[in-house]
């Protein structure tokens, strides 16, 4: 990854009727990195992505592309961009391979080269046998794969992917993650938006957390965690209930992230010692079990925007979150 910015977004705003979708947003994406825009629905991710792809234009602010071998430009050569829209669709009556060849030809590839690459990508995604099937006969997941291939087939310098994991099962989410890592290794810059924070946490070099059109936190994962004011995270199982006031008064505790009747998740301040907090906690309740880890991106985000959290160690879908460590 190079520190040279490939994409600079400077104080960009976009309004739709009465809604300010993006508000004075600024960030940079560097060459050869995976940069993730994170946030819930309505945060302004897709509007930002659509402006990056040239689908819509900002009302104010500038977007500058510094593609390798080209002068900085507000409107770059489209053949050097790849785009996976959030609202996806293909020609259901058309066949898979000719469609990929057409979309790649629109990006400047020769048809022969487009065909060669499309066949290789279809092989990679397990769709080689469906090359001459009509798109309408493919499952939604397989159509998603075709759309993903269309976004990167022409090997763009910058791939803008809006919710690349949506519609995929966990196995194919992992496949897409692996492919994105490979593209990054090959020098491609990937800007993606997602609300699957657990997936992005293992993939992105840098992230931008958005809320209501504005940047909330921005930087590498460690930078984001540091700037959130949260240090270590403690998941403690107790034998009985402890009131919130007692928990908040524990030494080094920044905030109570979540709790049930007998479990509590605590965020410590940066530099605070786990032992100090545990000793104080043992004075007010019997500690049955303890786990420590770093706050997940989700927790950092929720802490930053001031919303509630989920059960300790689990996300909204009941999956174990990244950053967990084995019990102490």
């Amino acid at each position, binding site marked *: 990854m190079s520190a040279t910015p490939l994409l600079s977004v400077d104080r960009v705003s976009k309004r739709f009727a009465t809604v300010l979708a993006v508000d004075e947003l600024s960030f940079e994406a560097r060459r050869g990195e995976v940069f993730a825009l994170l946030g819930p629905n309505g945060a302004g991710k897709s509007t930002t992505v659509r402006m990056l792809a040239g689908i819509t234009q900002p009302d104010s602010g500038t977007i500058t592309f510094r593609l390798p071998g080209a002068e900085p430009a507000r409107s770059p050569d489209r053949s050097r961009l790849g785009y996976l*829209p959030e609202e996806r669709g293909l020609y259901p009556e058309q066949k898979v391979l000719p469609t990929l060849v057409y979309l790649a030809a629109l990006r400047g590839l020769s048809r022969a080269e487009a065909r060669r690459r499309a066949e290789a990508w279809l092989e990679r995604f397990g769709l080689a046998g469906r090359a001459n099937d009509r798109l309408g006969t493919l499952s939604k997941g397989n159509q998603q794969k075709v759309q993903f291939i269309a976004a990167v087939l022409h090997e763009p310098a910058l791939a803008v992917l809006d919710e690349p994991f949506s519609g995929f099962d966990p196995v194919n989410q992992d496949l897409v993650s692996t492919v994105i890592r490979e593209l990054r290794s090959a020098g491609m810059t990937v800007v993606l938006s997602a609300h699957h924070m657990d997936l992005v946490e293992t993939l992105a070099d840098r992230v931008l957390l958005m809320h209501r059109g504005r940047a909330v936190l921005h930087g590498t994962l460690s930078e984001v965690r540091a700037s959130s004011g949260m240090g270590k995270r403690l998941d403690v199982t107790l034998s009985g209930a402890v009131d919130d006031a007692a928990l908040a008064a524990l030494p080094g505790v920044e905030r109570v992230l979540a709790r049930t009747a007998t479990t509590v998740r605590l965020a410590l301040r940066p530099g605070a010692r786990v032992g100090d907090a545990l000793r104080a906690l043992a004075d007010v309740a019997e500690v049955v079990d303890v786990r420590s880890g770093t706050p997940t991106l989700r927790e950092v985000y929720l802490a930053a925007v001031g919303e509630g959290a989920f059960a300790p160690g689990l996300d909204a879908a009941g999956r174990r979150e990244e950053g967990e460590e084995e019990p102490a």
Partner: protein
Amino acid sequence: MSHWRAVREVAAWEFRRFLRVRELLTTIVVVAVMAGPLPAAIGYMARRDAESAVTLAVPPGAGLAEASRFRFVELPPDEAASALERGEVDGILDLTDPAAPSLVVPRDPRWADALAAALGQRALQARLAEVGVTPDELSALGAPVPLEVNVTGSSRSSGVWPLVVISGFMLTLVSTGTALLFTAITGEKTQRVTELVLSAISPQAWIDGKVLGTGLSVVVNVLAFGLGIGLALLVPPLVRREPLPTLPALAGDPGVVVVSLAFAAAGAALYFLLFAAVAATIDDPATSQRSGVLTLPALFVGLGFLGLVIDPGNGVYRFLSYLPLSSPSAMPVRYLAGDAGALEVLLSLALVTATAVASRRAAGRVFALAILMTGKEPTWREVWRWLRRA
């Protein structure tokens, strides 16, 4: 990628998208069948119907002789009514007042006019006999004065067929093209393909390529249609070893063909561009009130058929032959009729071509903004604002 390379890629895609060999062959076969044997069968049935005998009951002593397909049976009124009920006669002709005969029939007869003509002829012959004039003398008296027509202008044909061919060609071209464009554009909107394409090429390149590709595929479809008609006209005489039908005068006049094709190309470009822009504003083709507007191109082209019923030199028709929306079908008709000279044709062609070129940017602007709108349709006021900015 250059604009024109993108146009070429889109045009090739749209052309292949709508050109299906199997459907083309089906079109040729269906048209050949519909244009050949079916009209012949209908004609046969009509002739057979016209030649079938009609039996009518008349009062005893009427003394009517058989006339063309009509036979008269003298029956008393009671028996005539019974015969009609049993279906032995087709009607009862009451001749109480010979000057105003009346007919009683169980259902509306198709042959009533033919019967009236036969009775009129019979009455005429009776009156001629009274005044001592023979039918031959009457024919000689009523014979028209032979008039020799010498056209000093450049009339190319006085027949109806060339007009039908020109107007029919334009109508088929435009109606097929607009139908394909409608399907393509509203389909891409509802299938959410638009962002994928517009991230790669400009909206102007997309609409240019669409119009070009769709136009080419329509031309092939129209040619297939013409081939079907050609087969219908040529195969039966070849099978029966009869002389082939002569081509309409239009086909033998390169001037008419060139003028018609030039106007067809310019007109189709204009109609398709405007149509594509309006189609892009439609959000849901199943519920949009705007779909009705899309029949307008065919309506304008249909004005060309006016030349079949009014004089192409008529002032209104002359105006229509210069109006870019109607000139593609009206001016070739005027040229064919010898009413328009080369200068008029060139001026009209220049007008429609200039309008098509000017419309390209405007249509591209509307297309660019409308194609990305989902969930609502732009109002006509918004469309007008976009046009003004364009």
